[in-house]
């Protein structure tokens, strides 16, 4: 195998890797570490980047994005942490149950849709649960340049607090932990008030937390440009529906547990994608005709576009109705 990246169809370029460590952190979260099979160094990345992991599960291939959480300065390995989601579509369960040390896998080059704004005078991180992962890499990156940061991290309980021990040991004055089961809540209003001009806030966690931070900051007079967020979005299961792909002249059925994008790919049609989480815009697809209702879940199209019924982001959005024809 040459060291040159293979450009295989859509998505970022691919890297052949093997699993070098599988480290259970607690009941729900396991860390997976990869090395390149060709022994080369990984491409560099910046904190907040993600990789798309290809999971070959029998005749089904899943492509799920995960934040890179290893130190960006360590190019010998990539690491991700995966939270088991028993209700999800099976990607995280596959990682937890099937992936073993020594397995060969394929991951993509890193893509960053949640990067640090290095012009900021201070970086204020808000993490909820598994939303800690991008911050692990951002913190390593900032520590090397003596960056000014502070982390506020909400976890369900001590037992489920991934990386809490490591973070509080290394950075006792910068890391603040809040346990839900001990009713420890962030005093967000107060926290936001005391920040120096030029502070950027970053949020990664459940939807409710992201909304809460945006709304509270905005009410406190923070400019929108200073609050950045990444929602962990996975496609949601839903009722099966039929789609006509006009360019490829195919009619496909999107199964309950697969996304529209996955169904298109399963039919052998190459469709563009990058993040597979509704935020990069790469998969935007024109609707030729539709009789029914769209279930838009992306962060890419605006409300007007959503209402127009002219576009869909197949990585996360679905459709309920009689017929849907796409320009693909």
């Amino acid at each position, binding site marked *: 195998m040459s060291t040159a990246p293979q450009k295989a169809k859509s998505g970022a370029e691919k890297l052949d890797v093997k699993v070098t460590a599988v480290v259970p952190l607690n009941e729900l979260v396991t860390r997976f570490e990869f090395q390149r099979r060709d022994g080369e160094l990984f491409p560099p990345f910046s904190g907040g980047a993600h990789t798309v992991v290809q999971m070959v599960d029998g005749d089904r291939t899943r492509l799920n994005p995960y934040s890179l959480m290893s130190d960006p300065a360590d190019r010998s390995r990539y690491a991700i942490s995966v939270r088991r989601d028993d209700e999800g579509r099976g990607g995280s369960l596959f990682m937890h149950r099937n992936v073993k040390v020594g397995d060969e896998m394929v991951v993509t080059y890193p893509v960053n849709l949640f990067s640090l704004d290095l012009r900021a005078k201070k970086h204020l991180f808000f993490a909820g649960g598994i939303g800690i992962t991008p911050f692990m890499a951002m913190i390593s990156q900032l520590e090397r340049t003596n960056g000014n940061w502070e982390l506020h991290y909400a976890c369900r309980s001590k037992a489920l607090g991934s990386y809490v021990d490591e973070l509080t040991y290394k950075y006792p004055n910068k890391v603040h932990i809040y346990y839900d089961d001990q009713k420890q809540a962030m005093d967000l209003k107060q926290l*936001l008030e005391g920040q*120096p001009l030029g502070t950027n806030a970053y949020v990664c966690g459940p939807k409710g937390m992201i909304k809460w931070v945006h709304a509270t900051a905005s009410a406190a*007079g923070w400019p929108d440009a200073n609050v950045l967020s990444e929602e962990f979005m996975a496609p949601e299961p839903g009722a099966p529906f039929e789609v006509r792909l006009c360019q490829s002249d195919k009619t496909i059925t999107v199964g309950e547990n697969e996304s529209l994008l996955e169904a298109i790919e399963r039919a052998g049609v190459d469709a563009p994608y990058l993040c597979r989480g509704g935020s990069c815009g790469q998969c935007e697809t024109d609707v030729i005709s539709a009789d029914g209702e769209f279930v838009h879940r992306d962060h890419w199209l605006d409300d007007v576009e959503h209402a127009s019924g002219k576009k869909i982001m197949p990585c996360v959005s679905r459709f309920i109705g009689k017929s849907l024809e796409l320009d693909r």
Partner: protein
Amino acid sequence: MSKFEFPTSIISRPVYGTLKARSGKHHLMIADAEGAEAILDVATPDLMANSHIIYIPLGTDYADKLRALSPAQFYVGPTYAASVSRIRRVLERSNMGLNIYLSGTEGLMGQAQNEAMQAGFAHSAIQTEHRGSIARRMQCVHCKGITEDVEMDPFVCSHCGLNLFVRDHYSRRWAAYQGVCIDAEDPGNVPASKGIYAQGDEV
């Protein structure tokens, strides 16, 4: 009439909006001359209770009207240069949550925006509203000297004396439009000056 509709231009040219009251506990308003009208338009007792106004009248008589709004703090300065140390001090002592409102001439808004950017503001996070004079703060791209209050195009650089063409190319870092020698290839061949926005043959 203190409002002027600037013609649309290249992306470098700043565009100004209309001030709107934002939520938050601290508001810094910096205005010159007719810029006072924009503050009078947006003012409410609630907003004024948390507002610090820094105002440079430039010979107008709006100061008393602004004072009558009873802002939390009110300062009248003779010139921008005389007010800038106060602006810096307010920024130094402020935290996130401070809202900035700039109104009046382009030169004032550009320079105050530059101070705010150095303090950590994104330029897009600063509200602006143009009122009053349409004169520009110009930088000569040749000698780098700044000429204030330029109304005519072309004009003579007040530092090096070159004949400069008024461009819409703007530098946020210098808070100034760029002026470029208009007769470099054919010295002395300088078209007649006209108002910057006057209709007629484009240079």
